[in-house]
């Protein structure tokens, strides 16, 4: 079974985040890492090939630093990496990103399963898996908290607020997984050493036959006009208990629609 896992390199949420002059996220001047939510599809892919053989290819779209997301996935055990890196990609929205990913997956070829995380931890849009499936003409089964692959079918469980659904799709398919699906492994030092020898290909937009004008900031369907820092947290409301503390608490919670 050949699996492609789409992974994203994101700014480390624990470090200072900065933005470029064109209001895009600064991805080059900050510490980054493999999006934590993307460790789950990597783990899911590794478990599937551990059980049934095959190859796991990790695919990322991003600037030079994004190679670290591939490296981390290879250290965990993925077999090879593909990095789409092109200056024209800067500022791409989800629509453009899904186009680049789709073309890269076509070029990788012979893919049984495409796995993604639930969302990137920086953009948190969650739309790329659906767009990707549409572009590839593949069934999409998203938000999987369980995944089994058997007899040419992928079966997932999707947990909703009131019910869990079991959904089947014929392969090849695009599956996005949640952070409930597994416990991602840590790389081992042996994995770190092995990763150094694993193949990583770097492709440009031209390699994919994607027109540079169809991606990037200028082609984006949305623009960020302005942004500002989240205001500092306001002082909490203190309720003095004069025998009616419970009632006041309940009033507060119901006003906030918690109860």
């Amino acid at each position, binding site marked *: 079974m050949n699996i492609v896992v789409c992974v994203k390199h994101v700014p480390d949420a624990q470090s200072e985040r900065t933005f470029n002059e064109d209001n895009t996220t600064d991805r080059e001047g900050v510490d980054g890492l493999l999006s934590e939510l993307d460790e789950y599809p990597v783990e899911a892919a590794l478990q599937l090939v551990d059980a049934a053989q095959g190859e796991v290819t990790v695919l990322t779209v991003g600037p030079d630093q994004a190679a670290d997301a591939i490296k981390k996935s290879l250290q965990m055990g993925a077999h090879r990496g593909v990095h789409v890196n092109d200056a024209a990609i800067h500022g791409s929205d989800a629509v453009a990103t899904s186009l680049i990913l789709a073309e890269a997956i076509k070029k990788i070829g012979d893919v049984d399963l495409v796995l993604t995380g639930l969302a990137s931890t920086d953009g948190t849009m969650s739309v790329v898996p659906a767009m990707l499936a549409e572009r590839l003409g593949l069934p999409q089964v998203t938000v999987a908290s369980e995944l089994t692959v058997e007899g040419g079918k992928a079966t997932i469980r999707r947990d909703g607020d009131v019910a869990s659904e079991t959904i089947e799709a014929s392969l090849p398919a695009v599956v996005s997984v949640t952070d409930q699906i597994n416990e991602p492994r840590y790389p081992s*030092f042996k994995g770190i050493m092995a990763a150094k020898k694993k193949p990583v290909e770097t492709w440009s937009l031209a390699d994919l036959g994607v027109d540079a004008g169809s991606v990037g900031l200028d082609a984006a369907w949305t623009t960020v006009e302005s942004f500002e820092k989240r205001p500092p947290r306001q002082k909490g409301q203190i309720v003095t208990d004069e025998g009616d503390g419970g009632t006041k608490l309940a009033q507060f919670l119901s006003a906030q629609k918690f109860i």
Partner: protein
Amino acid sequence: MRMRPGIVRCMAVERLVPSEEAGDLIALTREICRDVLAPRVDAAEAAGEFPRDVFGVLGRAGLLSLAYPEEFGGGGQPYEVYLQVVEEIASAWMSVAVGTSVHSLTCFPVASFGSKEQRQRLLPDMLGGEELGAYCLSEPQAGSDVSAIRTRATLTDDGGHYRLSGGKAWISHAGHADFYTTFVRTDDHPTRGLSCIVIPAGTEGMTFAPPERKMGLACDTVREVLFDGALVAADRLVGEPGMGMPIALAALDAGRLGIAAAATGLAQSALDLATSYSTDREQFGQSINRFQGLAFMLADMEAAVTSARATYLHAARLKDGGRSFSKQAAVAKLVCTDAAMKVTTDAVQVLGGYGYTQDFPAERFMREAKVTQIFEGTNQIQRLVISRQLLRG
């Protein structure tokens, strides 16, 4: 998602490492410290339970065998890198760093003095990541004075086994280990009569006393190991009979570097805590670190930590370069552990009354620092080693 604790006592130490994989290894160590060690350390130290599963995580990640040859399942890393990993672990959880260093020590005799056949037979499991070793040198009457060891090992008539009687004291993670690297008396000569033997867990006639009730390092379960006619296969005696003393001394040279690195990580944590607390804490209308009297104390702590790190790294680089490093290792153990004692004590001072409570880890750091001046050769013994080598000329 994985637990990401709000208050992370992680280090922002800038490290120069010799290779890209060493940098990735430090990053991996930090990740494990942040996700696995940091969320558990406070409760675990309060409960005093040995965290065997944490060593499983470290072992599977390859962090328990870094300084040993790849040929036998180790990481093939220089001491310079291995020790910085120990320092990182210590900054999150001192007991675990001590356990890591002790485990590394337990593999040293077979790796350095075992026959080729013994290395091939024993090392892959010892270094495989699933097993943990204990180091049995001290006895109630033989602490600093190793030549006073009384635990006897007598060859059986058929020559196939050694029969052990006696007991070891102060043995870290005894009862949880999978093998026991043990120094025994095979002859009456005080120094030339000692030998080293690797005893598998579960050996009949080997029992454990209840854990010692210690001042700190609660998760480093320490207890006596008692031998009452325990039979151990003769082919598990490392090298030749009588080599115990040189093996023990060589192992301690390397082992005390592990303690030096761990003490440095502990001191770094205390400094980080003191620094962040002193920014938040206001008296007389401003942060307490705006007072020079306090800021200079922090400066001295920083100087102590930085020079401790430089000292153990220098010794490590001598070792990695194949130079003699015994004196420098003793200097490092002395300097780093004294630094840890001073810095942790000062951290309690910076936190004032809060530092004296168990609501902050400063007082625990201070209790943990104390033992580093005692085990793997007391700091008086380090001075003995240093002065002897210095005066030998």
